[in-house]
Structure formats: C-alpha cells, structure tokens
C-alpha cells in the first residue's frame, strides 16, 4: 500500500543547529505513528515541516500533495492540533469555528453542530480567551476535525489534560483509528506510545534513532535511549 505521508531526507535548520536532520519516514493509510523523543528531539519541528508551515530541505508528500509546491492541498487533508493552543482570543468560539470551516471549504453548520460532541455547544457565544485550558484543547481538536481530514497531526495532545480528559481523548483516538484515520502523534509518554502506536519513530537530536513496533520501545529505553527519556 502506498504511503499517505512520505518524508524523504527532511532537514530543518535554525541557524547552525539542525532541529531535524535527514529524517525519512513513510506512513501508510490508517496507520498510527507516534513520534517519540525527549524535549528538543525535533518532534514538533518535524510536524511543522509535514504541515508545510515552515521552510525545510528535502521532500514531503501528503496524500500525493508535494508539501513545498502544493502546501495548500496538503493542508486540506490534514487536521492539526498544536502543543500550545493559540487561537485569536477576542473571537467567539462560533466565529472561530465558522472561519475555519469556510477556509476548509466545509459546512459551517456541520462544524457548529460538531461542537456538541466536544461539550462546547454551550460555549459557542463565549470568547476563546474566556475558555479554560481544557476547553481550548477541546476546541483545537474540534477545529482539527472540520472537513473530516484523513490525516491528523497531534502535538503532545494529552500534555495539558487532567486524568479524566486524558482518558477521554485516548478513547477518541482509538475511535479515529478504527475509522481509518492516519494519526501522527508527538509524545514523550512511553506508555501512551505503546498503547496507541502501530509504529514508534524515536527521534533523538533531530535524527531517527529507531523506527520500529511499539514493543521495541522498551528495548530502546533499556539501552542507551533510556538516558534520553524514560517514562511509564
């Protein structure tokens, strides 16, 4: 089966530092890949390269769209949840949802109806800045699903959630996997990686240190990789 996301020799430098250094990874449709690594390993930067929001060297294709030449086409099939939710605070939830839906050529009505699934319907008239951190996270997830994109990029999606919200999100992620969505998730939680992933790509100082089944993460952590980020 051909790759839905195909990154070849991707390099992203900030000055003289290579945040992503010759990373190649191919992800099949409906596969869940966890990008695992300690802080500063290059996970977030790689996600931003896949999204085409920062310039990079190398080649990336998402659903057949060359990210550098047709970033717009690529982003049409990607839903993105950033690590830190930064949305225009003065807009209401409704305005934000309608704006994103129109940009994604999706139905604003359907997108607004979708707020109920995230328990956000009652907040539609509230300004985004008035929402709690957890509600903002829910809004970011709701926005990422507008237009039903087949590929979801999630950057540390559980990092700011309490235990109950984390459990709920993990259940939703399981449902999206069952629905056939391709998930690329940044995480530094080993337990989460093992639970969710079909494959774990370990990044270390911008390079792929290991690309294997989740069961292999334990062996990696027991070896030299254990010094970079051992966790549950």
């Amino acid at each position, binding site marked *: 089966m051909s790759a839905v996301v195909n990154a070849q020799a991707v390099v992203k430098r900030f000055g003289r530092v290579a945040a992503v250094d010759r990373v190649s990874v191919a992800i099949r449709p409906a596969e869940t890949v966890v990008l695992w690594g300690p802080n500063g390993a290059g996970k977030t930067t790689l996600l931003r390269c896949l*999204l085409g929001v920062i*310039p990079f060297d190398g080649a990336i294709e998402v659903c057949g769209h060359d990210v550098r030449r047709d970033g717009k*086409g690529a*982003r049409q099939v990607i839903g993105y949840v*950033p690590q830190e939710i*930064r949305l225009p605070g003065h*807009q209401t939830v409704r305005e934000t949802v309608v704006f994103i839906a129109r940009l994604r*050529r999706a139905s604003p009505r359907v997108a607004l109806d979708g707020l109920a699934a995230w328990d956000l319907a009652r907040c539609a008239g509230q300004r985004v800045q008035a929402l709690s951190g957890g509600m903002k996270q829910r809004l970011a997830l709701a926005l990422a699903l507008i237009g039903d994109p087949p590929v979801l990029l999630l950057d540390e999606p559980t990092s700011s959630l309490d235990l109950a919200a984390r459990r709920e999100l993990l259940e939703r992620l399981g449902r999206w996997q069952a629905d056939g969505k391709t998930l690329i998730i940044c995480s530094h939680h080993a337990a989460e990686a093992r639970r969710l992933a079909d494959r774990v790509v370990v990044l270390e100082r911008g390079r792929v240190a290991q690309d294997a089944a989740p069961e292999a993460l334990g062996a990696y952590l027991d070896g030299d990789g254990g010094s970079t980020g051992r966790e549950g």
Partner: protein
Amino acid sequence: MDATAVFLIAHKEFRDLWRSRWFAVMAAAFAALSLGLSALGTAVVGLTGVAGFARTTASLLNLVMLIVPLMGLIMGAMSLAAEREHGTLLALLAQPVTAGDVLLGKWAGLAAALAAAVTGGFAVSALAIARAGGAAGLRDYLALAGLTVGLGWAHVALGLWISAGSRRSAPALGLAIFLWMVIVLVGDLGVMGTAVVLQLKPAQLLWLGFGNPAQVFRLAVLQAIHGDLEMLGAAGAYAASRLGPWLLPSLLGALAVWIAAPLGAAFALFRRRGAL
C-alpha cells in the same frame, strides 16, 4: 491565489481591527483633528467659523501627510508580527491557505479598515463644511480624500513588509516608527539637503521625489488640485514639461508601485520565514 480565502482573511482582519481599542482611538483622533482643522481653519487670519472646502483641503494635506503614514505603518507592522508572537499565525497557516492568500487578505483587510477610518474623518469634516457654506472646492477635497486612502494603502504595504520579517511586535513597531520618521520627517529635509550638496538637476530632484511615497502623494495632490507643479520651482516646471498630461497618471502609477512593490517584498520574506 484563492479569492475566497483572501476575502475571509480580509474580513476577519477588518473586524478584528475595528474591535481593537487602539484603532478606534486612532480613527476617532483622525476624525476629530479633521473636524478641528475645518472648524479652526480661518482662525489664523482672525476669522471664526468653519472654513470652506478649499482652505480645509490645504490644511488637511499637511495633517494627513503626518498621520496617515503613521497609521498605515503601525497597522501593517503589528499585523503579522503580533500574530507570530502570539502563536496564532501558526493556527492560520495550518489551514489550507497559501502565504499569498494570508498576506493579501491581511493587506486587504487593513486597507479597507484604514480607508473606512480616513473616509469617516473626511466625511465628518465635509458635513460640517457643507452645513456652514456651499460646496465650492468639494472636488479638490474629494481628490485629497481619495489620494489619502492611496497614501495609507502604500504605508500599510510597507508596514506588512516590516511585519513579514519580524518575530515580535515591539521591534516591528520600532522599525515602523523609524521608517515613518525617515519618510515623513527626514524625507523633506533629506531631499533638500541632497539637492544642495550634490547640486542636483531638476530631473534628478523629481526622480528623487518618486523615491518617497509621501512626496509622490504630495506631488499628486498638488497636480490634481492645481493642475501644475510650477509652485515647486524648477523641478515642478521640469515635471510639467517632461511628462505633460501624463504627469498625474505617472504619479498615480508611482503610488500604485509603492503599494505593489512592498507587498511583493513582504510576500517573498513571508514565504521564506513561514509561521515562526
């Protein structure tokens, strides 16, 4: 370029700007100053009452040359830089839009907001003048209003150029104010000083004027209102003889270039820089 995306981003930018307190204050201040100039326009010669369109046009020329470039530069400079600083630019660029859609949408939204503020200021004065007297000089007044909008649009584009390369809003704001001083305050003296020191010929002096959007605006206003630039001396006479009936179109074209060229430069910089 996606016209729908450009329109959506422009609409959002326009709405956000009108909701912001600083822009409302700026627009109100411009309207108050315009009204004040029309009300006090005859006070300097010992008369009271609202001045006519002709005198108000002359008074407003100097006001708009100071204020409108500053408004445009600040609006443009704060736009992308502030969004980049707050992280909201990443959320926008993560959508199916191009850098060109975002830049053009931002410019269009800011340009529309500035045009609304300028038009509002001119309209308030016009109502006061029309109530006090006739409509004599209205054509010149409208010409000034239209060219003022063009002046503002050029400076919004210059501000966006600054913003496209800035990671934070404070340095972008500082650079915008510095550029404003160069264009508006130093520009006049610089041209005069350069002309004296280098003993420039009238032709060189004219082309030097084309290198400053505020000077292009001033020349266009004078040409549109008076029909010639001879009051500017040798350079004005040269312009009239060299360009003849093409003088005003040339000046309008130069103002359009002062909108398009900074936008092009901003696009190249924005595309290279991305969301960070």
